[in-house]
């Protein structure tokens, strides 16, 4: 379990992480989502004891990082940019890590096999592709068979097969009861991987919710209506307090009805004896929802007008 309390990081005048509170529970994949520069990596560095918080604290299994036994057996991390010496072989890198935490050397070959790097284990890491570097980072994270796994932007540079593999790996680790904390700036990736979502923007937590709730609350939807009687339909819906906008090509526009229930719209229109050619519920993508949410954060900071920013 990871627990942050009023965690704050300031660099000079700017605040990278602004008094955030969150808990990452065991047994599920928690996504840590935010645009670049939102404070994700800073938070993860504080979590690993690499950067000292300006205020507040973050603990792993209720202890500050490194205050327990062998740290790599408790928490494994894939760090940004690999954090590997380019002149060393993959095996050499894992060997020193294993030695530093008294992990049996045999485990090195196991994790190399686990991430599919056995064939290139003795090649210098500097010759690796981005995806192979990510796999090595994941091998390093799993080296100590830790109960808490932290992956910072794990799918960066991976091919589709690799992305799928990371997704399954995260799922399996969570199913084994581990705490899995995955950062990303890609909403679509989080939607497929995470059970729980913590959204960060400008150093503040914008949402801390289950993925299902996030989709219900933030993925706005509308009903697309195609009809030969646009004016009548628009007037009818407006009379019922439903907002309607015209969209699509000027020669054959469609109506965007800002309601979440396509059946209700259809019933209303047919009860009035009007004709429909198309009636479709369109759910906006999570990417859009994410953009809207983080755009709100920017607005919030710029105007100090809290408007629809969920805590």
């Amino acid at each position, binding site marked *: 379990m990871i627990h942050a309390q009023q965690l704050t990081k300031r660099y000079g005048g700017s605040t990278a992480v602004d008094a955030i509170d969150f808990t990452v529970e065991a047994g599920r994949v928690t996504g840590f989502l935010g645009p670049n520069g939102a404070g994700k990596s800073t938070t993860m560095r504080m979590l690993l004891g690499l950067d000292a918080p300006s205020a507040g604290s973050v603990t792993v299994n209720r202890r500050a990082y*490194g205050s327990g036994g062998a740290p790599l057996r408790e928490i494994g991390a894939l760090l940004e940019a690999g954090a590997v010496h*380019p002149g060393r072989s993959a095996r050499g890198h894992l060997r*020193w890590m294993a030695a*530093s935490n008294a992990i049996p050397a045999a485990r090195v070959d196991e994790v190399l096999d686990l991430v*599919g790097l056995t064939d290139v284990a003795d090649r210098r890491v500097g010759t*690796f592709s981005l995806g192979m570097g990510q*796999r090595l980072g994941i091998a390093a994270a799993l080296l100590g068979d830790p109960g808490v796994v932290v992956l910072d932007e794990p799918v960066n540079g991976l091919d589709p097969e690799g992305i799928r593999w990371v997704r399954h790996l995260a799922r399996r680790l969570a199913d084994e009861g581990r705490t899995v904390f995955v950062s990303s700036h890609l909403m679509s990736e989080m939607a497929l991987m995470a059970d729980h979502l913590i959204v960060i923007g400008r150093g503040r937590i914008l949402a801390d919710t289950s993925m299902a709730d996030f989709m219900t609350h933030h993925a706005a939807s509308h009903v697309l209506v195609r009809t030969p009687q646009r004016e009548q339909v628009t007037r009818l819906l407006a009379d019922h307090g439903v907002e309607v906008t015209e969209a699509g090509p000027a020669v054959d526009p469609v109506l965007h009805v800002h309601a979440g229930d396509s059946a209700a719209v259809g019933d209303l229109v047919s009860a009035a004896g009007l004709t429909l050619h198309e009636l479709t519920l369109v759910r906006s993508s999570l990417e859009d929802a994410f953009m809207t949410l983080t755009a709100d954060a920017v607005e919030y900071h710029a105007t100090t007008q809290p408007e629809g920013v969920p805590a």
Partner: protein
Amino acid sequence: MTAPQTLPTNPSLPTTPSPTPLAPAAVSARPGLGAALRAEWIKLTTVRSTWWSLFALVVVGAGLTVLLGAVNAEWLASPEADESPASFITWGMMLAPAVAVVLGTLVVTSEYGSGMIRSSFAAVPSRGRVMLAKSLLVAVVLFVVGTATAFLGYVGTNPFFEAEGIGLPLEGDVLRAMYGSGLYLAGLGVLAVAVGFLVRHTAGAISILLGTLFVIGPMVLLVPGAFGEWLDKLMPHNTGGALSMPVSFNPNLLEPWTGFAVFLAEVAAVVAVAAWSLRRRDA
């Protein structure tokens, strides 16, 4: 650089449980200095720069000594000679410090350059322990290789001197210069590790160290009077370096062991500042 290679896919991976489950975190013992030393030893021996540095140390330290000894043996034995043969028997060890500095610096700054320092501190959260382990290993390696190199230079040079009737027995100041070379290089390695942690940048750290040893060092001779003489005595290449030479080229220096004690104090001061800063700064 070879082209990125497509990785073999292994569809069975995600469902393969780890064959040897490790002990749960709660009962794992906290690894100590021994584990940190083993880790640093693996790091040191798995990069090419270490082997290149040590190879260069032997070539410069022993090779140049033999070369200059062979070329100058006849002159040293002649009545015109105004230098003693003993001052030539460790000649190459005057340049070996440059190599020791590069080795000690790279052990630290290569980690900052690649971002690996984060892996290091994540694996060993006690930063003082990481610094201690690196310093100890660099010191031991440089002492052993430095002493062996000085001895190799002696063994290679002395036959030329003996042929001219000016051979030197391996005793007294000559013997002291052998392990003195190792001790001086070990001290420089520790200094370079400390400067590496302070500066975190390979070019910056090496420039500062080589500048202090080889540029500012000789330049203080330009400072006039007793103040200049004392500055000259106290420059690290002079305080520590005297121990690595049977007879010094510079008559102004402190006694070898006195100088080395001052050198160790200078190194300790830099190490203390580096250790303090290491604890305070973000990685």
